[in-house]
């Protein structure tokens, strides 16, 4: 089945230790998104790629970076995680089109910072 896969599902990192979360998709969608969802809050868009074009949200901290080496994969790098970065990180994909379609979400990676 076509799907969005995130690895790992659970990640524990130490304060200040860089961490990378990965997302892969078999849907061949050209747009990929990263969302941060803190406990009891709504998902918040961090950035997205339209093909290779990177689009950063204005309020996304510089501590968060992303890479998309090919259509199928996208990575979220947190350079120096703080306690406030503990959250669920959701990857999503969609097809850019004249009429937008729903975003397909992966299962998420729950990040704990100790």
């Amino acid at each position: 089945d076509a799907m969005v896969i995130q690895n790992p599902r659970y990640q524990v990192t130490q304060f200040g230790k860089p961490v990378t979360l990965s997302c892969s998709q078999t849907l061949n969608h050209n747009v990929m998104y990263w969302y941060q969802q803190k406990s009891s809050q709504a998902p918040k868009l961090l950035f997205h790629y339209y093909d290779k074009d990177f689009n950063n949200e204005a309020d996304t901290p510089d501590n968060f970076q992303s890479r998309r080496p090919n259509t199928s994969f996208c990575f979220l790098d947190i350079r120096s995680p703080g306690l406030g970065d503990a959250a669920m990180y959701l990857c999503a994909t969609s097809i850019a089109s004249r009429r937008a379609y729903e975003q397909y979400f992966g299962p998420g990676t729950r990040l704990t910072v100790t």
Partner: protein
Amino acid sequence: ELKVEQNPLFLSMQEGKNYTIYCNYSTTSDRLYWYRQDPGKSLESLFVLLSNGAVKQEGRLMASLDTKARLSTLHITAAVHDLSATYFCAVDSSGVAGGTSYGKLTFGQGTILTVHP
């Protein structure tokens, strides 16, 4: 800045009852989505509403969109325990550059629905 507001934020219902969740948004958009989230899980797409007057139904849930009022509703009919979850509406506020939407979503706060026997 786009604001998306849901109400109520907490909804406790008895099984068999009907209720409506409201989603108001502050800017012009004709693309609105409803998602369900179970505790500790990811988002599951429920409805995609792409035009004024759009109405979609799936089982005990029905969603509608009024773009002129900037309002979407999610109506629950004869609630059952399995519907207990958090429900989010999300508005697509992305510009359409060159005729292409990038699907930039702004979510409402979420409505935590609990259905009691």
